[in-house]
Structure formats: C-alpha cells, structure tokens
C-alpha cells in the first residue's frame, strides 16, 4: 500500500506536500524533524499518516510537547514497520 515519504531536510515536507497519494505516509528524519514543531494542528493539505523519528527529535533537544499532535512519534523499529507496510518509499532531501 502507498508510498512512504522519507523527509530528511527542512524543505522536504513542503516538497512532498502536494505530491502525496491517499494511501501514503510521511516520516520526518534528521533535519526534517524540525518541521514537526508548531504551528499546531495538521500541516495544511496533508491528509495522510504523519510520523516523526523520536531519536532525531531527542538529539535536537525538541520536547515531544512541541511536536504537533498530528505527528506520531516513532522509533527505528516503527520506522522499519512503516517500510514493510508501504511497498515503496521516496526520499525528499
């Protein structure tokens, strides 16, 4: 099912925003995790499952309370699980 979008830069989320299919999901990694912070609510136009890699948030000292509620925190095991559930992935640097 669907495409898993790997976002590893601050520009990446904007780049994939209008290129998402209904069964897709997004995971924020590395510098991409900054885009999980406020403003609150769902990033506009992104009606898909949104995830953020917890380890990369912690490394940057971003508290989970600053992460928009639309994002689910996930560890590496969960990341692997997402790549199993989605048949393909694309990286947005």
């Amino acid at each position, binding site marked *: 099912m669907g495409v898993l979008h*790997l976002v*590893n830069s601050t520009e990446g989320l904007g780049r994939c925003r209008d290129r998402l299919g209904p069964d897709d999901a997004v995971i924020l*990694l*590395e*510098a991409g995790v900054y885009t999980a912070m406020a403003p609150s609510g769902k990033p506009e136009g992104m009606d898909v499952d949104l995830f953020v890699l917890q*380890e*990369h948030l912690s490394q940057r000292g971003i508290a989970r309370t600053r992460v928009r509620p639309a994002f689910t925190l996930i*560890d*590496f*095991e969960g*990341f*692997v*699980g997402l*790549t*199993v559930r989605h*048949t*393909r*992935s694309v*990286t947005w*640097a």
Partner: protein
Amino acid sequence: MLGERPEVSIRLMKFAIQINDSPTRSESARTGFQFIKAALASGHEVVRVFFYQEGIYNAFIPGDSAEAAIPDWNALHRDEGIELVYCLSAAERRGQANSCPGFVAGGLGLWVDACLRAERVIVFGG
C-alpha cells in the same frame, strides 16, 4: 467458531539499502545504519548495502563503535554477514582507494541485482 483471523502482523522482508552521503558530512549514513540494525533485529533480511555517490566515503572512513558517531559498518559485516559494496567508479571519481575492511568494490550492476532480489528498496541521503 473460527472467525476471520487477522493478517499476520510481522511480514519478513528482504531489503536493498543505498547510502548516498558521507558519514562525516551528514547524518544519513548513520540513519541508514540504525535502520539496518533495527530491520535485522526485527528478523528482516538485508540483501546488500550499496554505497553510491558521496556514500562511498563510508568505505574509506573507519567506523568508531566507541564514539558511535561514525557507523561501524565493518562490525555489521563481521557480526551479521551483511554485504557492503561501494561503487568503484564513484570512489575513483573521488580519488579514493584502499577501502576499510568489510567492504568490497563493485559496479552499479550489483545495485540493480540487489533491487531485483529485494522486496523493499530504501535510499538514505542524497
């Protein structure tokens, strides 16, 4: 009574992994490294790791388990038997020779072969 059984939640997969960034200039190599360790821990198989573009520097910068900043690819090869292939022409283009233990040189053909054998292809960096 037998109801409908839920689908088995753990499906074991074969992964092909491409690493495209240097371990000292970006986090992506380390992300890929941790992803592979997590995949193996979940019982998945990693068909081959292919180091391409700037990723070839992983084959020329020794890993450091103690610092954990630079992935210890050789340990992954030694302990888990994971095949580590760096692109020879990408390395030559960057003037790199004499790779670290655990790595072998190869061409893009080995990457295509890994893609064809794997069920999931994941690219880190680049």
